């Protein structure tokens, strides 16, 4: 069924092992430094601007970005490119509204910023729940993808592949903490950029290195003569066009765009990266680096996404469980056709590194939030009874988060779980972003508003996804029934609901202490006074 398994997989396996060995060496050296909370949770706040920029990029450009976007552009053209645009523009939201205040006023988690002037326990409990939800959903999507990809790339079965990825990720997080996770992300970002450039140049080479010829071919994409009539992939609407069958296509597309641009600034694993730098100025520099790198990468998706449709045959693209073409394999297959076995091995290793770096980042943010927000501050009122307890709890939590994700990924292996990524972005945009913004910019904001915003954002996202066509489908859905909500992307409804709930909740009660503390939070957020700097060595 799959033509690539015909040749020996040794080069791919060799590069995998090389990458794993390198990251384990880094973990070993990080482990010797990872003592104390700031070192474990925030890499001692000693990561430099460009390093953190690369790490943000490495944390962000997931397998869903690299493999998923190239696949969806190859199959659906322009509508897939919207992901590329949205994922980048989202960094303006991060840079303008979130990065600097968060770094100035927080310590380890998103909840630090909220709990600053609101009631610690309810706010931290809700924020921690939201963080764990986002991270776990996102991770299950990555793990299920990872298992499938590794199976195809190096021929290891799904279950051992997922368990292997899970164990490696736990080694990074449990022993190396944020420092090891950061370096895994940096290396991955460099590898990914290298792979993306090489792939793009090879694709362009197939079109005589001429952009005009390239776009000429893309506008008559015929999948190497295996699809007729040829389609113009540059035309929007192949995935989200409004048709008689789906009159809500355009609204769904707008909803997707909204979720992308506002979701990133609420993703916990991205937010915690800004605590690893010494100050807000470095946080700003790292966003600029990240924006440059991520932007170049997503422009390159033009070449290995659209370009794939001019080079691959339809028969090269494997089918998923539902019998539709599975775009996830497009980039590695393209690499094999253009660059042969070794290049295929390299791109496969890049995909593998991508998955590992992202799941490590997710586990890190989930366990940090549980240990710091829930265990230390909700259960133990912010007092550490024994030194190092918070870090120990985080390590144990990482183990459980990893085990649960491995278990769920194995259970859900035959399902199409791509909607979980959308769910994570939707929760981030609808639950996390409203309360972060109100907390920094609105004096009157209070605990009731924060809890209401988080709860409504979280619940509305989950409920709308469960009753959407992604889950409810008479033929192939998890729930075999007609969908109750017509959009695949809930953002256009759930984001306003999240903001509205935070707003109305606030107006329903008064909290003079929260308003009194606004002065201090505001001075901290704007000036960086009192923020924890780099650990002295």
């Amino acid at each position: 069924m799959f033509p690539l398994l015909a040749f020996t997989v040794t080069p791919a396996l060799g590069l995998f092992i090389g990458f794993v060995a390198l990251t384990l060496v880094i973990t070993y050296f990080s482990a010797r430094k990872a003592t104390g909370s700031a070192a474990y949770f925030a890499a001692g706040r000693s990561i430099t601007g460009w390093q953190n920029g690369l790490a943000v990029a490495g944390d962000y450009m997931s397998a869903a970005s690299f493999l998923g976007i190239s696949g969806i552009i190859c199959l659906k053209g322009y509508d897939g490119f919207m992901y590329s645009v949205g994922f980048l523009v989202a960094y303006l939201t991060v840079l303008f509204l979130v990065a600097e205040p968060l770094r100035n006023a927080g310590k380890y988690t998103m909840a630090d910023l909220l709990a600053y002037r609101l009631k610690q326990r309810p706010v931290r409990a809700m924020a921690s729940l939201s963080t764990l939800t986002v991270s776990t959903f996102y991770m299950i999507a990555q793990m299920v993808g990872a298992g499938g990809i590794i199976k195809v790339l190096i021929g290891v079965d799904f279950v051992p592949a997922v368990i292997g990825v899970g164990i490696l990720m736990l080694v990074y997080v449990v022993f190396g903490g944020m420092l090891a996770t950061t370096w895994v992300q940096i290396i991955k970002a460099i590898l990914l950029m290298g792979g993306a450039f090489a792939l793009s140049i090879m694709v362009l080479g197939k079109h005589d290195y001429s952009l005009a010829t390239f776009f000429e071919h893309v506008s008559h994409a015929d999948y190497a003569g295996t699809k007729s009539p040829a389609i113009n992939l540059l035309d929007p609407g192949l995935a989200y066009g409004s048709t008689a069958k789906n009159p809500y296509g355009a609204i769904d597309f707008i909803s997707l765009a909204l979720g992308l641009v506002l979701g990133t600034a609420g993703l916990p694993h991205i937010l915690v990266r800004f605590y690893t730098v010494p100050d807000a100025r470095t946080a700003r520099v790292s966003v600029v680096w990240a924006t440059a790198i991520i932007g170049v990468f997503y422009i390159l998706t033009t070449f290995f996404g659209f370009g794939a449709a001019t080079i691959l045959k339809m028969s090269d693209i494997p089918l998923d469980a539902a019998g539709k073409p599975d775009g996830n394999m497009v980039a590695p297959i393209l690499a094999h056709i253009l660059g042969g076995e070794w290049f295929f091995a390299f791109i496969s290793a890049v995909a593998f590194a991508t998955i590992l770096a992202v799941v490590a980042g997710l586990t890190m943010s989930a366990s940090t939030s549980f240990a710091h927000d829930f265990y230390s501050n909700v259960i133990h009122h912010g007092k550490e009874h024994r030194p190092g307890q918070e870090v120990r709890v985080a390590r144990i939590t990482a183990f459980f988060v990893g085990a649960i994700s491995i278990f769920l990924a194995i259970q859900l292996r035959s399902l199409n779980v791509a909607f979980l990524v959308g769910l994570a972005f939707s929760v981030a945009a609808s639950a996390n972003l409203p309360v972060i913004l109100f907390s920094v910019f609105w004096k009157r904001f209070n605990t009731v508003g924060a809890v209401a915003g988080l709860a409504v954002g979280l619940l509305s996202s989950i409920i709308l996804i469960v009753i959407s066509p992604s889950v409810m489908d008479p033929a192939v859905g998890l729930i075999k029934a007609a969908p109750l909500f017509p959009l695949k992307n809930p953002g256009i409804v759930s984001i306003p609901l999240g903001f509205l709930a935070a707003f109305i909740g606030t107006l329903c009660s008064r909290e003079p202490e929260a308003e009194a503390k606004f002065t201090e939070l505001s001075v901290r957020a704007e000036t960086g006074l009192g923020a924890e700097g780099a650990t002295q060595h």
Partner: protein
Amino acid sequence: MSNPENPDYTPISGGPTDVAPLGRSGPKPAHEKTADEDGDPFPWAAIANDPGFAALKRAKLRFIVPGTLFFFCYYMALPILVGFFPAMMKAPILGKVNAAYLFALSQFIMTWVLCAMYVRAAKRWDIMNAELLAKFIRR
């Protein structure tokens, strides 16, 4: 008072604050702090009331509010135009490249330009911030 909920400074027997070893790193336990260390170290209210702080906040908002509105509208115009006016956006402009793709590409450039503008503006804020803090904090 570092912890108003628990004004009893009697060390817990056997607790970490009881027999702190010499040469330890990490913060002092609450009962060992001097009055100076125990008080809030920064004059938050005084800084907030300083005209320099109001000017800093105003300078930031003057950039961030219009900047955010601009990029949000410019970005959302893409899915709205593509969703509701597909025929217009399918029109080829440069060779085979249509309006939809060029508009998408312009989003990348818009992002980088706004990023650069933010960095330039933020350099001014850093100076204002340093001047403001110099009035209150001796380094």
